[in-house]
């Protein structure tokens, strides 16, 4: 205060114009101080740069929306991050929807973008003959024939397609031979070895029975929009057992899937009860979820009611879309997060080994998550500080008169939450973590390190818009590093559902080899550990799919390592 008064004494001796100028400046400063602070969220830094156009990712989704509001138009599509040519970098495979009436079959071609090795892309023209003519929805990736390259399974509104990779990135449609051309409206899908015979089986979630000729007109506040799924009958999911000779057998009925089914949109195959067998969690739209507990003989029992994951804590069946798993609370079992429609919170099912607790409020997701309709979902360490963060790709499914003022009636911003390392998530500003918010009708989303810099990038499919490529810049200045593992089994394929456990200082982190989850999408199978300011992971152990464990030792920061079965020290 004293210094202010003496400053004012001297101020009287200045030229009046200067005095006035000073006063105006100070006034403006004061007024600017009076403004309300912008939103109260924590870190104002940018986590991602949108770089699709500058890096050559030119895919643009086409829903074929014709004004008739056919339900499939608002549902697709997905994306996969995979290394089709085994050259060590991640390529991007986009699922195109297209026009429902097939007068424009070209509109439905899926697109493959090959990585130039530095996170820039070129469109593969070779795929055109095998681009799958279906109205595309989702995708799973996996080496179903154990020949050392990754194959692709595509779900459609109608017959699904299995594309076999010849190892060079050329694909052949082997659906008929393989016997996996389910004709329903397929959505999320997942490769997993349910019978532990070394070959990947296949789970396919189906949405509902829908036919354009009998689709009803539905209204929200008096304008026509998309129907809720309850106007249709739910379709049964399918599970195909891999025969090990390039063919599959549809075991849906004998496996018990007819005992419960819903409008499936999200799927993860994960061992929830730590019995060494891969179970399946299915998020259903506006119906209770299923949790298929693997009985070990290729039969499953839906125990979602007992486990407490059929509905939310309020006793409500939610409109489940995307789903993600991870050991979020670091207790060596896998928790499940499901995202839902606007006005419904996310559902965080915390695993207590023999049941789930709905702990959505405890992790602070109850407060903020209702605003948008969430589809794509990533729970991973996005800033390499060793704690899980959360990214949600959003976009509404119906519109009303208020939305008619928008260019895209269904658009919503994406959201990013930072994991606080004490088990909570807090909303990040700017919304979605990009300098300019990504505001589209977003659907599928997949994660992987596209430029090999040790941080994880995101690819998001936007309905009727160009895809977003969100290059991670979050750890450029912070003390944060990562270690990544490729985990290969005895067939030299990614060991899906193998668990990697590692010590990070005093903590024990558990992750699994997974490509499934999110919404209609497939992730990079590498296991990623952000390690913050630490320099190494110790006691890295892999629990293989058949229950055997191997210790691989200590790994230093900023490395990409391959853990091959048989190269570690067997642990009893």
């Amino acid at each position, binding site marked *: 205060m004293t210094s202010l008064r003496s400053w004012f004494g001297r101020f009287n001796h200045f030229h009046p114009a200067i005095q006035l100028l000073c006063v105006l400046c100070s006034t403006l400063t004061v007024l600017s101080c009076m403004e309300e602070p912008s939103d109260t969220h924590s870190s104002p830094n940018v986590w991602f740069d949108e770089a699709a156009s500058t890096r050559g990712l030119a895919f643009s989704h086409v829903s074929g929306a014709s004004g008739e509001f056919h339900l499939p138009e608002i549902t697709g599509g997905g994306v996969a991050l995979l290394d089709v040519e085994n050259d060590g970098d991640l390529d991007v495979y986009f699922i195109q929807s297209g026009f429902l009436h097939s007068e424009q079959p070209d509109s439905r071609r899926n697109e493959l973008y090959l990585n130039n090795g530095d996170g820039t892309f070129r469109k593969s023209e070779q795929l055109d003959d095998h681009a799958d003519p279906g109205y595309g929805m989702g995708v799973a990736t996996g080496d179903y024939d154990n020949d050392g390259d990754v194959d692709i399974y595509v779900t459609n509104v109608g017959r699904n397609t299995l594309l076999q990779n010849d190892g060079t990135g050329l694909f052949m449609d082997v659906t008929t031979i393989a016997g996996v051309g389910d004709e329903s409206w397929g959505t999320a899908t997942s490769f997993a070895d349910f019978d532990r015979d070394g070959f990947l089986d296949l789970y396919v979630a189906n949405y509902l029975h829908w036919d354009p000729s009998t689709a009803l007109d539905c209204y929200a506040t008096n304008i026509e929009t998309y129907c809720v799924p309850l106007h249709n009958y739910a379709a049964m999911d399918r599970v195909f057992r891999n025969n090990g000779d390039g063919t599959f057998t549809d075991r849906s009925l004998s496996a018990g899937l007819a005992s419960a089914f819903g409008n499936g949109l999200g799927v993860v195959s994960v061992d929830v009860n730590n019995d060494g067998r891969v179970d399946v969690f299915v998020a259903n739209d506006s119906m209770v979820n299923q949790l298929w507990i693997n009985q070990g003989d290729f039969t499953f029992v839906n125990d979602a009611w007992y486990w407490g994951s059929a509905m939310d804590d309020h006793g409500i069946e939610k409109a489940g879309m995307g789903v993600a798993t991870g050991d979020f609370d670091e207790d060596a079992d896998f928790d499940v997060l499901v995202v839902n429609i606007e006005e419904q919170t996310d559902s965080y099912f915390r695993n207590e080994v023999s049941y789930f607790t709905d702990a959505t409020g405890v992790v602070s997701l109850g407060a903020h998550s*209702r605003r948008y309709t969430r589809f794509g979902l990533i729970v991973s360490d996005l800033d390499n500080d060793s704690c899980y963060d959360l990214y949600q790709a959003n976009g509404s499914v119906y519109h009303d008169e208020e939305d008619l003022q928008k260019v895209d009636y269904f658009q919503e911003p994406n959201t990013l939450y930072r994991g606080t390392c004490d088990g909570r998530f807090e909303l990040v500003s700017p919304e979605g973590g990009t300098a300019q918010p990504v505001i589209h009708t977003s659907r599928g989303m997949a994660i992987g390190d596209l430029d090999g810099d040790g941080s994880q990038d995101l690819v998001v499919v936007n309905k009727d818009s160009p895809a977003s490529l969100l290059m991670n810049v979050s750890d450029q200045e912070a003390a944060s590093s990562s270690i990544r593992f490729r985990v290969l089994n005895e067939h030299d394929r990614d060991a899906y559902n193998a668990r990697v456990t590692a010590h990070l200082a005093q903590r024990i982190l558990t992750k699994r080899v997974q490509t499934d989850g999110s919404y209609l999408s497939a992730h990079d199978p590498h296991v990623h550990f952000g390690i913050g300011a630490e320099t190494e992971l110790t006691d890295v152990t892999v629990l293989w799919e058949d229950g055997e464990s191997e210790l691989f030792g200590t790994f230093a920061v900023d490395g990409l390592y391959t853990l091959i079965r048989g190269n570690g020290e067997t642990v009893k």
Partner: protein
Amino acid sequence: MPDVEHTYLVCLTSLSIFKIVSQRSNRVRRFGPKALIRREYSDSVVGLIAISVVLSLLVACTPKSEQAQSSNSRYDPLPNSVISRISDESLRDYIATLAETVSKSDSSSEAIGRLAMAYDANGFDDTAESAYRASVARYPDQFKWQYLFALRLQKNGDLESAIEVAQEAIKLNDAYPALYVRLGSWLLDRGQPAAANDAFERAVELGAGPAAELGAARSHLKLENHSAALEILRSVVTRTSHPVAFRLLSDTWRELGDEEKSREYLEYVTQTKSMWFDDPLLAEMREHTRGNGERMRDVELMLGSGLVDDALLALKSLDSESAPDFNVQYHYALAYFQNQAFDQAEQHLKRAIELEPVHYPSHLLLASLYQRRDDNVNAANHLEHVVKIYPKLQIAHQELGFVRLRLGDTNGALESLEAAISLDSTAPNVHYYAGVILGERGLCERALEKFETALALERNHAKARIGVSECVRALSLSDSSNTSAPNE
């Protein structure tokens, strides 16, 4: 910046401006006429700038809360361009009239509130939030707007603000039970079970009923206070068979490690349903619903919650206000069907089909109604309509198969049942009845296959089990007669 220092700086700045202006006025008086004119002009500019700066400072000196109140009391009404595009005439006129009343003359609490409720009830979520905010800012002592504002904020996804506003509302009226039920639920969502428990217990005191009690049990469960949760739940299930009550009982036993008891209570949880509780203010808001779309959604919700009489009332008003609508007639029928008033249901279904002959749900429901009356001929007739309209609808083929079987048309029945199986092979009864027909025709091997499938789908299907044993016996008899034949 700390408030004291901030105010001090603002006041010093104001004083300095007055000082500059007065100094310049003194100087003007010391110079000649030309200079006077030039300097008068210059001084006027300086003066104007000074006045504007002072005004700015006055604004700056205004307490923040007052500023916020002033800006909050304004709201962005729905643009005329949007209102004019509302397709439903009754809704368009209603919104336009209310908006005009508010903008022209009447800015009373009721007028603005009515407009806010109209926006809210008809799906204009953002505009409703803005209008409620204005109502609350202008009439901060009125509970109704605070409460409805909190509800709208929560629905729009701003739970933090909703809780804040709800807590303000309690200061105005601490005896509105529904507010405590909602607040408890929101606090649970925010991860504050202890605070939630306080809210639920207050709701129980105020007589909010089982919804509040179940909320209290939920919060006890979150607090791992299992015995308190059990006590409440045991009492509630003697008064209501709501699935949430049994689910919570199941959860409690599960957490206590008694899996058997937990699963036993789960047997009662056959559906999900939210717990209804009385909320007169919400009902008042919903009375502002106009146009069929939103009101039909309300009707569906009412029917889904078993509030058939309320649904019938809403349908009556819809029917009287709008042009004949097959959907209204169909929902009437659904409501009467739930009330087992089948004659009235039949009338409305016939009317719905008259208005929209290809509305297959009406045909399907009518067929179901005729089946109840054993009028299989009429049932078959409507099911055949459904199959024509929607050939991929499994349930239509299935029901047609059953009806034809009752009519003795086994060929038609088998055809329908096979069609149903080709569309969805998971209904055990379809396989079973197909097996019955095949068995009667002496095609035991094929019948056995059908019975076995039915059993695979439903392990306790007693009739299918009998079918299997009869077929096995018939087949073994046939085998033995075949093998014994040469000897004979």
